[in-house]
């Protein structure tokens, strides 16, 4: 099942040097590995452990997540507009699969 993240940039057209705010939300259980099911077995950990954001192929922000991040992780950060191009957000799951979302930005 492909999960589609929700991504919002506060501006699509920016002047060079402007700060662009990114807000992103993705559906994920973020199973902490601490919880037990009804028969007392520990539910295995399954979280998105890595997040990266690249603008035109250059990394501008990244984060490592631990189980203490809430389910349906939300992330908000800023980057400095330098050049036009795709804004690609990637979340990496514990099982190695990736969730990718893309927006674009025009820098004048």
């Amino acid at each position, binding site marked *: 099942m492909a999960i589609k993240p929700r991504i919002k940039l506060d501006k699509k057209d920016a002047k060079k040097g402007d*700060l662009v705010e990114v807000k992103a939300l993705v559906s994920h259980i973020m199973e*902490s590995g*601490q*919880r*037990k099911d009804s028969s007392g077995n520990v539910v295995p950990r399954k979280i998105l452990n890595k997040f990266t954001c690249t*603008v035109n192929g*250059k*990394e*501008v*922000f*990244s*984060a*490592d*997540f*631990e*189980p*203490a*991040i*809430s*389910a349906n*992780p*939300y*992330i*908000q*950060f*800023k*980057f*400095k507009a*330098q050049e036009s191009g795709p804004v690609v957000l990637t979340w990496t799951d514990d099982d190695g699969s990736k969730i990718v979302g893309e927006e674009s930005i025009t820098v004048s």
Partner: protein
Amino acid sequence: MKLSINRRQMLTIGAGAAALGMLGLPVTPAYAKNDSDEAIAKFTGGKAPTAGRVKLDLPEIAENGNTVPMTVSVESPMTEQSHVTDVLVVTDGNPRAGVATFHFSPASGVAEANTRIRLATSQNIIAIAKMNDGSFYSATKAVKVTIGGCGG
């Protein structure tokens, strides 16, 4: 021999037992300290961070520990010469200390990130920022949690 214990003796025994409980074997704390110190030491390489420059924004009281909004920002010009490289966020009361590590660069423009975190109980949240010159800054914020957020 008949063993008789009157009321006064009974009270003494009771008090003695209570005192033993307090002084004798170490009583397990309600919440054992987690690995936050180790996590911080690993991040800073044993250096003591200076308090300041880091701002942690969390509610004073979180009604639902399952999702507590958290903003961490670090005062820095974010230029090639002087910028924040990493920010570690840990808690001292969750089963595991780690929350997240944010990685910044001059391309970030500003060292600021917001996310939502889980807090199992009332506790301190600690953010430590690593600068590109190798110095460390920190901030601590206590949050009261009404309903813990680790399921169970």
